[in-house]
């Protein structure tokens, strides 16, 4: 899986690993970093990470190019992800975090759509069935880590469509 991951063109562009001082340039740079982090984590099925792991991971450290994103800049990227709703800190010291390549609202919608389509409104499901059941196999629900589902169900039910 790691082999077939396609790095975006920015990953081979040395300036990508320097936080740009020009505000407009930085906006584009951070947007590219955010989508890279999310696609990387989704493909590697990595839903949580520590900052230390991140520093050494090929995600922020391009060994071939001999460039790594400095830790202060990694934190700027993580903060962007948090603002967008794709990241949550797991501790007060901000040393480890949760990565949600789909935001809870997005999961909520998907679950609702699946449930409606399979005509199973008003039945009760367990978390396991939702994420691992045969019915859901080909569906986009599949790589949905357990804790994401928990969030997602809360979201879906808060739209008063699914019982809790």
């Amino acid at each position, binding site marked *: 899986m790691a082999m077939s991951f396609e790095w975006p063109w920015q990953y081979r562009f040395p300036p990508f690993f320097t936080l740009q*001082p020009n505000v*407009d*340039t930085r906006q584009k740079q951070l947007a590219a970093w955010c989508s890279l982090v999310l696609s990387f984590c989704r493909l590697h099925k990595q839903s949580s990470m520590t900052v230390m792991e991140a520093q050494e991971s090929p995600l922020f450290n391009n060994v071939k190019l001999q460039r790594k994103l400095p830790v202060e800049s990694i934190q700027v990227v993580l903060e962007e992800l948090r603002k967008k709703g794709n990241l949550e800190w797991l501790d007060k010291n901000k040393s480890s975090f949760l990565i949600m390549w789909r935001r809870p609202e997005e999961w909520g919608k998907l679950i609702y759509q699946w449930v409606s389509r399979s005509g199973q409104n008003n039945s009760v499901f367990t978390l396991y069935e939702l994420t691992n059941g045969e019915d859901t196999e080909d569906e986009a629900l599949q790589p949905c880590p357990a804790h994401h589902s928990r969030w997602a169900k809360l979201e879906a039910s808060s739209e008063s469509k699914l019982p809790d």
Partner: protein
Amino acid sequence: MDRFVWTSGLLEINETLVIQQRGVRIYDGEEKIKFDAGTLLLSTHRLIWRDQKNHECCMAILLSQIVFIEEQAAGIGKSAKIVVHLHPPPSNKEPGPFQSSKNSYIKLSFKEHGQIEFYRRLSEEMTQRRWENMPVSQSLQTNRGPQPGRIRAVGIVGIERKLEEKRKETDKNISEAKEMVELSKSIANKIKDKQGDITEDETIRFKSYLLSMGIANPVTRETYGSGTQYHMQLAKQLAGILQGPLEERGGIMSLTEVYCLVNRARGMELLSPEDLVNACKMLEALKLPLRLRVFDSGVMVIELQSHKEEEMVASALETVSEKGSLTSEEFAKLVGMSVLLAKERLLLAEKMGHLCRDDSVEGLRFYPNLFMTQS
């Protein structure tokens, strides 16, 4: 230290605040005393010190009590200081923090900087002696130090007499300065004659001594009256001298390059950096064909009016794109500019969004800004 009197710290009518500075410690002569952290205020009439922790503790000295002041530069672990030499206290002095002191001077230590500006303002007040022309309440006046040989005159006659005295003093200073200028000129000429025996190094050193003594045209200043007039004349002179060299260097030069060029051309009557900057500030106002420009980094350059740095940026982008990426040094070499100006041009290009940077242990490189051009 026994010259200080307790005060409320409020200014009197006709007394104006000139400058104030936090973080000042007072020394009685060379000794440290308990007044170690205060705000020092300079007014047209007094020097006031107020304790930062206890605002009730506030004392002052009349400026008329000051004989002269000196600067003491900062050192390792030592803040810059002003040494204030004082007249003996008058017999009718109001109470203050010290009844007696063996020292006739105090030191003000600027722990949070600000010494240079404060010294400048205090010297100004000491020269202008505004307290003599602006009467304040009796309580301040009675604290004047004894002025042997001075007749206390009042009214217009008094003011006129004081102005006369001031003029006489200034004349005396100018004549002394003239002597010094003559002396240095004769030495300089002797050096010129013996040019072969004296090394370039020594000549340069001697020239720099002259510069540090401020021999930069004190007589010329007199001829031209106020400083600004002098700078105007200088600005016009500069426009003439620099036109050629600027054109040779692609229309732009750093101010340090200009300083060296101009002083080398002048020979003996060297320009001080301040005079150069002040003259350059007037270039645009005087509609001369050059202008002073200050970049974000603080670097100052002289540009021909016809020079458009922003357009040069477009050509810089082309150069960088051709080579893939460039450092300031590589770019400078390619284009034939000084590294300082090359860096400023690349930074301007980055600011305008044409370039982006790669900052690593290998150094600072500039690339075309693909973030913006590539989707």
